[in-house]
């Protein structure tokens, strides 16, 4: 109905206009992305629980040596989108911590030993990855939504102040520090609000990915577009979920960000998360010079391009770099069919971390496609709209999204071929 696009990524744009994903629709792509979604969802089940534990309970503990040890209450905390008590049951499974997660927390890669020894040996879930994602959201600005501005508002400052004083009640040293440096603990509380934000975001994504894995296992996805559609529907279904930050101090619940402020999962969590973590993030130490005179890092935050959509997985696969931590987490929970693929290609088991990292990149291009399609549906027009003006508006939107992948670091072109492993 409208002439073809002349954009460099016209082929991808036409696929999006036909209801597809940025990721080509092949059986192997579908298998790879579903398998990695499941491998991601298990550690994610830990991340969201511990993020909320830190935001709500650890709070301003000055020496949070045990912040990576969420209480049993948080391991048992019913996921609001799984199990019988769900607000909206996205996953047919149970609401408590995933059995594979619990098993890994017991045994790790080594064997059963006290939690503290697993922790010190670093044979555990790499919670540092989750904190790096939180840091990315905390640091970046101008990503849409009202969260950032609210955290600068007088209402928030008053709420935070109340919580700080309650937490440090009877502690003259800390209360004195708070008086001397009023911005210090306030900024810590802001950071903790981002812990809560990310925790509430991933609480939704884990059951979405688990359900996708179950649907795939029973042959329920006809292809990559069907998997993408499941994500699009999930995004809409949970869009209105409240984003809040409650803190529990001496048995009392203080609302630092009440639900009544109206913050939503879509605008205040999901979209800023995608922008901060998929696109921008921050250059990983050791891969770029932080020396301003070297000019390796852009002056404009919006120009940051260190997220998964731009990642060169090989150098990123180095010790301590956040995505590497996630890759190591995921390798523990790969479904058998993914392990098979990695054994059969490239260096087999020796470079399976890189291979799965690239699979993960493919899968996140699919998630990004779902976000783009959801935004198109929310802000523009149906793909089969009879009005050419509307189709052109959709076209312009897709093209502006593809513009972000014109830069050389983007991996959009690489994920078009199966050879990229």
């Amino acid at each position: 109905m409208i002439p073809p696009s002349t954009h460099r990524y016209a082929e991808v744009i036409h696929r999006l206009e036909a209801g597809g994903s940025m990721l080509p629709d092949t059986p192997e792509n579908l298998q790879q992305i579903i398998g990695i979604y499941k491998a991601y969802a298990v550690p994610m089940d830990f991340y969201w629980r511990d993020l909320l534990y830190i935001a709500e309970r650890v709070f301003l503990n000055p020496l949070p040596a045990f912040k990576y040890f969420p209480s049993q209450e948080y391991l048992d905390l019913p996921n609001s989108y799984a199990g019988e008590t769900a607000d909206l049951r996205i996953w047919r499974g149970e609401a408590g911590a995933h059995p594979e997660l619990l098993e890994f927390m017991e045994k790790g890669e080594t064997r059963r030993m006290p939690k503290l020894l697993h922790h010190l040996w670093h044979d555990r879930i790499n919670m540092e990855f989750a904190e790096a994602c939180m840091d990315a959201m905390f640091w970046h600005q101008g990503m849409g939504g009202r969260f950032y501005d609210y955290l600068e508002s007088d209402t928030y400052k008053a709420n935070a102040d109340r919580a700080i004083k309650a937490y440090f009640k009877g502690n003259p040293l800390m209360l004195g520090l708070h008086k001397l440096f009023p911005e210090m603990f306030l900024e810590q509380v802001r950071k903790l609000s981002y812990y809560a934000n990310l925790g509430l975001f991933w609480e939704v994504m884990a059951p979405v990915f688990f359900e996708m894995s179950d649907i795939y296992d029973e042959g329920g996805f006809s292809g990559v577009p069907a998997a993408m559609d499941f994500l699009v529907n999930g995004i809409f279904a949970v869009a209105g979920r409240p984003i809040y930050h409650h803190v529990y101090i001496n048995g009392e619940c203080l609302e630092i960000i009440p639900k009544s402020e109206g913050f939503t999962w879509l605008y205040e969590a999901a979209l800023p998360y995608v922008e901060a973590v998929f696109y921008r993030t921050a250059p990983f130490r050791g891969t770029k010079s932080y020396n301003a005179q070297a000019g390796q890092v852009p002056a404009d935050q919006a120009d940051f391009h260190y997220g998964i959509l731009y990642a060169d997985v090989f150098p990123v696969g180095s010790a301590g770099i956040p995505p590497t931590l996630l890759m190591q987490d995921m390798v523990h929970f790969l479904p058998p069919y993914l392990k098979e693929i990695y054994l059969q290609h490239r260096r087999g088991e020796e470079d399976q971390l890189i291979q799965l990292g690239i699979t993960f990149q493919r899968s996140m291009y699919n998630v990004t496609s779902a976000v783009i399609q959801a935004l198109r549906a929310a802000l523009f027009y149906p793909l089969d709209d009879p009005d050419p003006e509307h189709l052109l508006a959709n076209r312009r939107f897709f093209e502006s999204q593809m513009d972000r992948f014109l830069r050389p670091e983007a991996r959009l072109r690489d994920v078009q071929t199966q050879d990229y492993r």
Partner: protein
Amino acid sequence: MPDILDTARAAGCFQTLLATIEAGGLLEALASPGPFTVFAPVDDAFAALPAGTVQTLVQNPPQLARILKYHVLSGQYTREQLIAQAEWTTLEGAPLPIRRFDPFEVKNASVNAADVVCDNGIVHVINRVMLPG
């Protein structure tokens, strides 16, 4: 003249809208003298949203109210007046663009029937639930 809510009730195609207005705690506000300009999505518009969308919003009144307020302007504006400005600030705070004059389109919604005058404002009937952004 009936007010905005009574007009919507009488029309018969705004069941979901009225239910969400009540769930969102906005009944009293929309019954007040105003005046308001309301872009009212028909039942089909809500039905077109993916399953669970409305349910999650209805479970969370403040979040629902935000989406509903994006459909309301303070003041009474006819189509003629609306097309004179590129965008309008909604009660929600986010801007609402006028995308086309004829056919009359507000953001990504088509206005099926404009200028339904009521006691406390004016209603323009639209075919889509609008979202900020």
